[in-house]
């Protein structure tokens, strides 16, 4: 799967299908601090992500 991080850097992860929540936690990201879209559609953190998916993360906690 392709993961586009909030800083717009891209990571390709070779993982077996797992929930978005599990993927985020493995990367040290609190699921409450980001919003995710899969292939352009908003998804919840308990969505199962497949190998061919493209996930984009937006960071929601901003200062100021």
């Amino acid at each position, binding site marked *: 799967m392709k993961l586009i991080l909030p800083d717009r850097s891209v990571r390709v992860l070779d993982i077996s299908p797992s929930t978005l929540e599990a993927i985020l936690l493995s990367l040290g990201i609190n699921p*409450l601090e980001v919003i995710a879209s899969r292939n352009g*559609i908003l998804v919840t953190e308990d969505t199962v992500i497949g190998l061919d998916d493209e996930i984009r993360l937006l960071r929601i906690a901003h200062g100021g």
Partner: protein
Amino acid sequence: MVPGPEVPRCSICTDPAVLFQRGNGRHLCGTHAISDICDRVSATIREEEMIVPGDRVAVALSGGKDSTALLMILNRLLPSLKGVSLVAITIDEGIAGYRDETVRSAGNLVSSLGVEHISLSFPDLFGNTLDQFLKGREKEACTVCGILRKKALITGSERAGATKLATGHNLDDEAQSVLMNIFRGDFSRLVRNSGADSSGRFIPRIKPLKGISEKEIATFLLLNNAWTDLPECPYSGYALRREVRSMLSGLEYRHPGTMQHLMESKKKIEKYCASTYTREPIRRCRVCGDPSSGELCQLCQLRSSLVR
């Protein structure tokens, strides 16, 4: 694009879910997420009598996500708020590389909604930008900015003839403030309710989004195509709030409902203290005449140390 089979479904209509409310275990689709958020804001306004018929509500509109969502939601609720009018107030503090974008975003929003807009800047009101005021005292950024911005918003609200000043503080902000006040030992702020009866001395502040989480607000904006990836305030790294936010967010994830429980605790403390805790009487600042708890208001105390 059609969502895959593993997409969780809305608890109300079975459409694909876009929001998971961890506190109550509910999934919501886009339509039901928007209506749930607006309904809860409406309920907060009603239950706490934040807005009454005939009010002219000044909305503090920085152009960031919270104030953007607040103006959009209040504008949406306007037909149900009899005789109520809105006016947006934008303050340009003068923060290079940050505020220009959010001010532009605020301008675009009021144009699209057709809401009256008043813009003020720190140089106009106080003689210099926040960046200049903070040279050599960056660690005080949030305190200095908070005092000046509060005065600027009150000035804007008075010019607009507003009867209420609405700010975009959300559940996360409010829960963070409770913890920060405890960490600082600031009991007076902990039990203070800015929306309480002001007896006409200042424009009451209201926080209609105080029951809505930061994630719900971001979801609301994305669903309404109103999300803008704006830069972060360059001074936020100095703030205690950043550390508290991270800690609280971790707790909320591991123990859903933590922030809500914190707010309920604050409410109980407020209630218990109402009969025993004597608040400082509100006086008038001897220099500017503004309402103040001391002889000098915070702004006048700050003014003498500001670089012009």
